[in-house]
């Protein structure tokens, strides 16, 4: 029945956590208070390389009663269980305050505890570390090297070298070709909520309120740090104030807070400052991407090369797989990629929205535009010609892909085919039009959810997922309501803590597909149980309007349950992946990816170099959209992230001292409201992805932030004739390039 289908899913349902958030009642980790808690403030290394010789804490301790200064000597040693936790979900193998070695500026060398935040902050300033300095290795100046599999598992998540066909020969003999180097600086996430944790020991058990993206990761890691059983660690995170990847894994401050609490015997609250967020969690690394593309007279791609380098720490090899783009975006017989790292004295980078395909799509989407111009082909036609009908790496069919429909609908809505010529004036401004592909590989994680249906006709979803603003708390109630034929108001839920069925993480745009499918499966199991009791074939059984129905027989949930003598029916389901995998990128033989096409119009002031986003049209192929309201917000948020990446953001290292030059929101610009036009036109093609999971959905969170920088760079080229290869594209670079055009 169609009314049931459309009743709850696909509706613009407002967020279930909206009321508590607009009232200021939602409590985040840093809002928690435990009686007798101590505030922790770290003392950070001011040198990027060396050893800590000693620490003078006399002045700090003399400041007031109740001040504690913890150094490496005071901290418990890591339990050997931690060796069994891989990196990731442990963010880095290097946990500070276990020895005296300093490997990056901003490494924690001591932790000051005091009953008030003001006192702890003041005392921390009085702690005097004495250092012996080693010579500093600037990662940006190092020769790229192969990643070492012994330095964490990051390098194992994709191929470091891969070739198909004979790209060099094909490149050499093709009539049209481009070779360029694309660069981008390190970028910090700057979630509005700095990371925070409150750790509290009681009877040998540890409870933490934490700001994070995956409950289970924190639970198993903290248990391992202390050699506890998993049940002895309780993790609570009802709200996370934005994560964007940098709260995905377990960073040292989370471990240090738990250690400090154990040592001092009181609850410890450790709220990072904005400045700490630059050194104490990850960021997207500085990257260099060497691109070589060639095509025939008709624009058919003959060769793609994408050789990618990124900076990393001395402690672990984080690899930013930008080359995922060359392996996945376009049909081509000759493709070659490589990934290299440049190690130095900096804190470790990490996955940040949108990892891999975000940087990868900037380089590939820009280089393809260059090639289209070189070959005299419209950039959209170039993409249609090179559409990858199957996955380019394996030749396997996609789980589902409707990118051609996105191209067509996007071009229509934007008016691509009838756009004015690039460089057309509008007052002082030069108008420019650009487009690019959006695309992100779809991770699926094993994930569990519980569901209970009561005789009152209400239902309750229980799963440990985190909602960091991406909307799962709302969407999963919709899924349960639809599948059980209940109004949304009859469904409640619990999430964000241990003790609930273990959900997969909230990253890699995987939450909806992983936990959402678990909720749907749990609902189907309940329906099957009801049908079995009534001795109805499940295929003929419908749940709608608070009733269960087979043909003309219809019972209210209440009556049906009474008949069965039950007060409630509970089920717990796991979205299990083939082969018992913890994570995959689509079902075996059916790789999953989300797609889209983004069209932008920019304005460039040729005298001042200013760039403005005038409008954007994005059309996406992401499977079934469960809530158009929250989905639109996810997408516009991603486009704005992309605008920041394209034109504003960057964190730079002092080449002598190895410190981030700016560690605040004054020196590191991010988009504000005035930067963003109201005219962001977002739509989705109608699609149901049967292969990716029974829900029919794929992810959108990362997808939205891909392709944006390329579309913007291409539009700036269209407006000015200047091709900028270094992000962010700021006025100084535009003016410099315009002088040469």
């Amino acid at each position, binding site marked *: 029945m169609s009314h049931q289908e459309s009743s709850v899913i696909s509706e613009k349902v407002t967020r279930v956590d909206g*009321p508590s958030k607009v009232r200021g009642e939602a409590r985040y980790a840093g809002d928690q208070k435990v009686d007798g808690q101590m505030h922790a403030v770290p003392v950070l290394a001011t040198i990027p390389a060396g050893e800590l010789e000693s620490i003078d804490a006399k002045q700090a301790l003399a400041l007031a009663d109740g001040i504690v200064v913890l150094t490496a000597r005071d901290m418990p040693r890591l339990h050997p269980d931690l060796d069994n936790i891989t990196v990731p979900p442990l963010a880095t193998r290097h946990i500070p305050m276990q020895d005296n070695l300093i490997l990056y500026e901003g490494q924690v060398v001591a932790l000051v505890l005091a009953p008030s935040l003001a006192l702890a902050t003041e005392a921390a300033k009085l702690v005097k570390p004495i250092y012996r300095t080693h010579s500093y290795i600037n990662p940006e100046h190092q020769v790229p090297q192969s990643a070492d599999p012994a330095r964490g598992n990051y390098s194992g998540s994709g191929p470091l070298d891969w070739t198909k066909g004979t790209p060099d020969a094909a490149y050499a003999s093709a009539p049209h070709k481009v070779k360029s180097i694309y660069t981008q600086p390190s970028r910090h996430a700057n979630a509005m909520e700095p990371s925070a944790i409150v750790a509290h020991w009681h009877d040998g058990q540890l409870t933490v309120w934490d700001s994070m993206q995956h409950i289970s990761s924190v639970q198993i890691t903290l248990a391992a740090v202390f050699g506890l059983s998993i049940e002895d660690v309780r993790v609570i995170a009802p709200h996370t104030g934005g994560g964007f990847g940098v709260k995905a894994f377990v960073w040292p401050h989370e471990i240090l807070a738990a250690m400090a609490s154990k040592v001092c015997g009181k609850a410890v609250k450790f709220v990072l400052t904005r400045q700490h967020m630059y050194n104490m969690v990850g960021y997207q690394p500085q990257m260099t991407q060497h691109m070589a593309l060639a095509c025939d007279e008709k624009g058919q791609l003959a060769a793609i090369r994408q050789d990618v380098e990124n900076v990393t720490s001395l402690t672990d090899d984080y690899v930013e797989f930008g080359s995922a783009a060359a392996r996945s975006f376009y049909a081509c017989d000759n493709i070659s990629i490589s990934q290299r790292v440049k190690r130095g004295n900096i804190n470790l980078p990490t996955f940040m929205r949108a990892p891999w395909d975000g940087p990868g799509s900037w380089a590939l989407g820009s280089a393809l535009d260059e090639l289209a111009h070189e070959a005299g082909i419209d950039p959209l036609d170039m993409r249609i010609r090179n559409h990858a009908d199957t996955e380019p790496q394996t030749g396997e069919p996609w789980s589902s892909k409707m990118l051609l429909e996105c191209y067509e609908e996007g071009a229509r809505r934007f008016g691509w085919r009838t756009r004015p010529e690039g460089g057309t004036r509008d007052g002082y401004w030069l108008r420019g039009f650009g487009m690019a592909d959006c695309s992100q590989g779809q991770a699926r994680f094993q994930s569990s959810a519980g569901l209970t249906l009561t005789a009152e006709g209400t239902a309750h979803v229980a799963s440990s997922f985190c909602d960091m603003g991406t909307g799962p708390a709302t969407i999963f109630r919709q899924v349960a309501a639809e599948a059980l034929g209940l109004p949304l108001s009859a469904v409640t839920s619990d999430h964000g803590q241990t003790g609930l069925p273990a959900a997969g993480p909230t990253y890699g745009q995987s939450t909806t597909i992983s936990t959402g499918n678990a909720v749907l499966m749990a609902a189907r199991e309940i329906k099957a149980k009801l049908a079995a009791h009534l001795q109805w074939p499940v295929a003929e059984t419908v749940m709608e309007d608070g009733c269960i129905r087979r043909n003309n027989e219809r019972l209210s949930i209440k009556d049906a349950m009474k008949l069965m003598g039950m007060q409630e029916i509970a089920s717990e389901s796991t979205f299990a992946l083939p082969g018992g995998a913890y994570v995959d990128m689509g079902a075996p033989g059916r790789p999953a990816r989300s797609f889209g096409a983004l069209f932008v119009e920019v304005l460039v002031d040729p005298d001042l170099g200013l760039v403005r986003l005038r409008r954007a049209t994005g059309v996406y192929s992401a499977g079934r959209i469960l809530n158009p309201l929250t989905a639109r917000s996810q997408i516009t948020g991603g486009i704005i992230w992309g605008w920041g990446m394209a034109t504003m953001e960057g964190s730079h290292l002092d080449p002598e001292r190895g410190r981030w030059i700016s560690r605040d929101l004054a020196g590191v610009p991010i988009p504000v409201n*005035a930067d963003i036009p109201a005219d962001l036109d977002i739509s989705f093609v109608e699609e149901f992805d049967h292969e990716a999971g029974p829900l029919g959905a794929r992810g959108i969170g990362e997808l939205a932030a891909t392709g944006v920088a390329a579309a913007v760079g291409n539009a700036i080229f269209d407006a000015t004739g200047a091709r900028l290869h270094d992000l962010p594209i700021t006025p100084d670079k535009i003016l410099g390039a315009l002088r040469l055009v």
Partner: protein
Amino acid sequence: MSASARSQTIDISLTVNGRPVQASVEPRLSLLDFLREELDLTGAKKGCNRGECGTCTVLVDGRRVNSCLVLAASASNHEVVTVEGLAKDGELHPVQQAFIEADALQCGFCTSGQIISAVACIEEGHAGSTEEIREWMSGNLCRCSCYPQIAEAVEMAARRMEADNA
């Protein structure tokens, strides 16, 4: 600061969300820390503690301020309103309601500040058009980047409040 300066406290009396509050505070205590740490009003957030992000925005005598840049002592004899004080008899302020309807929040961490700022923005007469709203709401960062939805919510609330006052 010397130990003696720290131990000297200042007696303040102010109203917070219509409630009289009396306290004895260190001179260095910010209004934000006073609200969060002493009064347990945690709606206002600390995104930067330096006046860069707006997550700590509250009203002082009806004006929007970054409470991380205001000393608690200087708020004495003034009226402070935080996001917790906007709803009347449990009913949401039109701005709060509009934020939900327009989906002007994701993680919600900037939301208290955005909403307080929006109330003032409308009161100041800076909500005449979307462009004006975008400009006058730019002191409040949102990294989830709900900007179009925030502008829409402020406009929605402003129009409804105009209609109610007409």
